[in-house]
C-alpha cells in the first residue's frame, strides 16, 4: 500500500489517554499521532477498548486522564476536552466526521436522503436551498446512489445504501478527520467490498485522515496504513499494517492473525 507523504504537523495527537470503567475495562496508556491523509486502524477483540477509545476521540466521553489534541488546518492546537463545549461541538460538526456502525444511529430516518446530507451544511450556516440540494445530489452520485432518490427516505434504502448515505452525510462538510466504528459490520461481503472501495477512493481523493475501528483484519489490511492492536484496554502492538499482519510480534496479535479464516 502506498503511504501518504508524511506531513510534519499531525491532525490529532493522543497522549496518555485513559478511560476505565473497571480494572482493564476501557482503554489506558494510549498514545499516537495521526497525520493528514493517514488511515489508522484500531483492531482487537470485543471488549478490548476500541470503541471506548473512539468515543474519547470523538468528544463523546471525556477520558479520566490524558490529552487529545486536534491541530486545525490553520495550525491551531485544540485540546478537545479543555476548549469550551460550544467550540467542541462546532469542531465535531465541521472538522470531525463520525460514521456509526449502524446507519440508523447516524442518519435521520424520517427525513429524506437530501435533508440528511444537507443537515450538516445547514448546521454550519448554509441557508441557500438550491445550493444545499446541489451538494446533496452531487454527494449521492459520489457514493453511487441514484440522484433521483434524493427525496426518498433512508428507510427505503438497503443496508449498504444507508451506509453509503451516512458516509455522504458525514463528508458533505469536508471534515478533515473521520472516525469510523465498524463501518462495514453487518453487511454482506459484496456490499462490504463496495463500501471499502468507496472509502478508499474518498480517502485518497479528499486527503482525509481516518481512524477506523474494526475487528475484521481483512478490512484493516485493505484500508489502513497503520494499525493499533488492542487487548484488555491496552495497545499491545502498533506499526505498519503489512508489518503487523505479516510478522506479528505480540502473542495476542499472532493469535489474532492466525485466527483469520481464509476461504
Amino acid at each position, binding site marked *: 500500500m502506498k503511504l501518504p507523504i508524511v506531513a510534519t504537523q499531525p491532525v490529532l495527537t493522543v497522549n496518555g489517554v485513559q478511560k476505565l470503567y473497571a480494572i482493564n475495562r476501557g482503554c489506558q496508556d494510549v498514545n499516537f499521532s495521526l497525520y493528514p491523509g493517514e488511515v489508522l486502524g484500531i483492531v482487537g477483540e470485543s471488549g478490548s477498548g476500541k470503541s471506548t477509545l473512539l468515543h474519547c476521540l470523538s468528544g463523546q466521553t471525556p477520558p479520566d486522564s490524558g490529552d487529545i489534541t486536534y491541530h486545525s488546518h490553520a495550525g491551531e492546537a485544540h485540546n478537545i476536552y479543555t476548549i469550551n463545549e460550544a467550540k467542541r461541538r462546532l469542531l465535531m460538526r465541521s472538522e470531525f466526521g463520525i460514521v456509526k456502525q449502524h446507519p440508523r444511529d447516524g442518519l435521520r430516518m424520517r427525513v429524506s436522503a437530501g435533508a440528511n446530507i*444537507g443537515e450538516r451544511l445547514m448546521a454550519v450556516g448554509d441557508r441557500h436551498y438550491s445550493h444545499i440540494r446541489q451538494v446533496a445530489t452531487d454527494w449521492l452520485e459520489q457514493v453511487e446512489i441514484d440522484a433521483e432518490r434524493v427525496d426518498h427516505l433512508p428507510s427505503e434504502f438497503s443496508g449498504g445504501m444507508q451506509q453509503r448515505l451516512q458516509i455522504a452525510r458525514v463528508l458533505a462538510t469536508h471534515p478533515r478527520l473521520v472516525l469510523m466504528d465498524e463501518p462495514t459490520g453487518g453487511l454482506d461481503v459484496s456490499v462490504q467490498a463496495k463500501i471499502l472501495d468507496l472509502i478508499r477512493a474518498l480517502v485518497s481523493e479528499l486527503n482525509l485522515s481516518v481512524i477506523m475501528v474494526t475487528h475484521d483484519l481483512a478490512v484493516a489490511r485493505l484500508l489502513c496504513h497503520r494499525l493499533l492492536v488492542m487487548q484488555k484496554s491496552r495497545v499491545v502492538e502498533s506499526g505498519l499494517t503489512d508489518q503487523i499482519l505479516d510478522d506479528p510480534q505480540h502473542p495476542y496479535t499472532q493469535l489474532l492473525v492466525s485466527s483469520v479464516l481464509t476461504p
Partner: protein
Amino acid sequence: MDNIINNARVVNPSTHYNFAYLDEHSKRTIRRGLLKAVAIPGYQVPFAGREMPMPYGWGTGGVQLTASILGTDDVLKVIDQGSDDTTNAVSIRRFFERTAAVKTTTATDQATVIQTRHRIPEQPLKNNQILIFQVPIPDPLRFIEPSETEAQKMHALEEYGVMHVKLYEDIAHYGHIATTYAYPALVNERYVMDPSPIPKFDNPKLHMSEALLLFGAGREKRLYAVPPYTKVKSLDFEDHPFEVQQWEEDCALCGSGESFLDEVIIDDDGTRMFVCSDSHYCAQRVESQENTQVNTQKDIRINTQVKNVPSKKQEIA
C-alpha cells in the same frame, strides 16, 4: 356588538377564591418567571405550573399567565382561533369574570390584556396592551431532537441548523415551505421560538410588536416572551424567502381582502364560504359598512341558507 358584549348575562363574582383564582404566592412566582422571560426574549423559562380547573390543552398556561398579571382595572378579551364566542374563549372569559370580577370586552382596542389561542388580532395592538398566547409545545426543537437535555444544549449554544431540515423537506416535497402554523422564528437574533400554533400569516405581526407578547405552556410548564419592539424573524432560505398565506377570495361577510380567512362548510352538500377568523374585526367592518351604505354582501348572506355555521356568523346574520 361592541365593548359591552356581556351585559346580556350578569356574572356574579365568586367570593370563594383569591383574586384571579391563583394564590398570591403562585402568581408572584409566575411574574418573576415573566420578568426573566422579558429580559431574555425567546428564552423558555421553566415555572412552577399550578393545576387549573380545566384540562391541559385548554389553555392552562395562558390562564395562569393571565391570572398572574391581571389587575382590578384591567379589561380582558379572550379569543380562540380569532373568535370571541367559541366555547374555550367564553369559558375562560367567564372564569375571570367570576374569579377576578374584571371587565371583559370583545373589542380589541379596548382590552388591556388579551388571551389568545392560535391567532393575533387583525387590528394592530398598542403598547399598553399585553397579548397572552396559549402554547401546547413550547420547544421548536422538540420534533427534531427528542432529548430534552440535548435540545436545551442546542438552544444554549445557538445550534439551530437543524431547524432548517424541516423547511428543506417542505421545499423538496411541495416546492415551497408548506409549514403554515407554529412557524419557527428567531427572536432578537438569538433564540428560536415556537410562536404557538398561530398561522404563519400572523408571524410578521410579532416583529417589532408594540404590545408585550407573553407565551405560556401549562402542561410543559414553560413561559417565554417577546418584549415590545423586538426583532422577530421567521426562518427561511435565501432562495425561498418567508411568505404568508394568501386567498383568492375576500371575506364573505365583510369583504376584507387583508385578513386571515377561515373556510367554513355551510351545508351538507359541501358548500363553503370564507370568512374572517377574527370575529371582532369582521363584525366591526360589517357594522361600519351597514352604517354607511346598503351592504350587498349582507344580501348575499341572507339569501344563503346558513346551516351548521359557528355562532358568530349567525349572530352577525
